[in-house]
């Protein structure tokens, strides 16, 4: 089929990877520009947007989850947050942003992706902290540890496997969400798909789909290994069941 041939040609042409004008350029305001015709640049932009979003989400969700889990309150709230975020279409948030003061482009996409990256981290951190055996907590308090010490030196290490699982879910999901940026004038690998559809070059659409899928599977694989590495051996089976 010629579509597959076109995709192959696109993927094996060096210029598709490094772009006609190089990988990086400069915007009008002097900032770094990811050239939109280079696969390498789009991949880097994709990763930058994903990690910015997860970073923002983690910076807010981790402390909140640690605190709520430590005081063991707010389980209902975390459930509601994750349920509502599941029902809210990403496209709805992106288009709402575009029509509001937040506007189009990468910044709006990063904010939207951060909102969706938030619930898995919060829920898992909360569950991990609140699930620590009450006897363990009491033993720690009985030894004269302060609240902060119990939270950070007893509960947190025991919650690490679940927190890692939450970060993995959240990151994989974000890398999968960022392609939608192409619909609201943002960057990332979705641009290839969107451009291909707009110009009816289905070979490029297919190639873009392959690239996005490969990136997501690759990131998930890497994170699965990282998650395994930070999980103590006896806890490994339990986390697989929970994830």
């Amino acid at each position, binding site marked *: 089929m010629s579509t597959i041939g076109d995709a192959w040609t696109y993927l094996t042409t060096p210029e598709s990877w490094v772009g006609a004008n190089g990988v990086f350029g400069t915007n009008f305001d002097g900032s770094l520009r990811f050239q939109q015709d280079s696969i390498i640049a789009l991949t880097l932009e994709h990763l930058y947007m994903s990690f910015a979003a997860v970073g923002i989400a983690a910076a807010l969700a981790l402390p909140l989850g640690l605190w709520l889990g430590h005081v063991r309150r707010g389980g209902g709230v975390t459930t509601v947050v994750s349920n509502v975020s599941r*029902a*809210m*279409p990403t496209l*709805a948030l992106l*288009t709402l942003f575009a029509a509001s003061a937040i506007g189009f482009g990468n910044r709006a996409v990063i904010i939207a992706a951060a909102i969706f990256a938030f619930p898995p981290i919060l829920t898992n951190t909360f569950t991990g902290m609140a699930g620590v055996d009450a006897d363990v907590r009491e033993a720690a308090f009985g030894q004269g540890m302060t609240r902060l010490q119990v939270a950070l030196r007893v509960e947190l290490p025991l919650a690490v496997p679940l927190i890692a699982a939450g970060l993995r879910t959240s990151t994989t999901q974000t890398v999968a969400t960022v392609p939608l940026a192409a*619909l609201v004038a943002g960057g990332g690998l979705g641009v290839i798909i969107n451009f291909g559809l707009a110009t009816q070059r289905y*070979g490029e659409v297919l190639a873009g*789909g392959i690239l*996005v899928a490969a990136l997501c599977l690759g990131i998930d694989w890497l994170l699965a290994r990282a998650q395994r590495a930070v999980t103590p051996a006896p806890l490994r089976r339990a986390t697989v069941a929970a994830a």
Partner: protein
Amino acid sequence: MYGRGVDNPWLSLDYLRRSGDEVWEQLVIHTSLTLQAILIAAAIALPLAMVVRRSPRFAGPILGITGVLYTVPSFALFALLAPFTGIGRTTVLIGLVAYALLVLVRNTVVGLQGVDPDIVDAARGLGYSRTRMLLTVELPNALPSIFAGLRIATVSTVALVTVGVVVGYGGLGQLMFRGMQSNYRAQIATSALLCLALALLLDLLLVLIARWATPWARERRRARRSLRGGRAGGAGRSAEAAA
């Protein structure tokens, strides 16, 4: 098209009055697409889960393949399918089914594995064949877990339909996207709210169906509640006695 300084409200009855037919049309498409996808996915997932239950050596491949399908982002999946299945309903439907599969298969397997071994033993003692046991004992007992999976799958499918705009068939997402292009806030907000409402309504409907389909769970809930009431009464009595 609204310019700056022109009244551009987020919510307006005027929009519904003028474009009610179009909104209704997309809402019907959105709903029918969701229901069709869930029914097809359930029809595939239930037999797959039963296969996993009967011969666990298939568990790895089946959960692995559905897991990969789940990790590939919808945007990319539509792009991978579009060159072959064209632009429109079929492509979106295949993508939605692929996504719902993992959740449904996993929850059904978990449900089947969680059936009380005593019940299975009792059925075996009565001379039930494996197939009869699966259909009349294990499957009904797994219903709560299956319905939990159906709820998650349905709510996420409602949100996922909107990504169909990539191939020009996104139900309410179509309205969001057009509203964004013409900066028409009422159109975006209305379709976003309808999406949330649809997810909520279908979720509620599934809760009611689950209740009707598992009357024994209702009995058990009632028993637990009266037990709790009794215990509270007992505590009250002993408090009185102490006074």
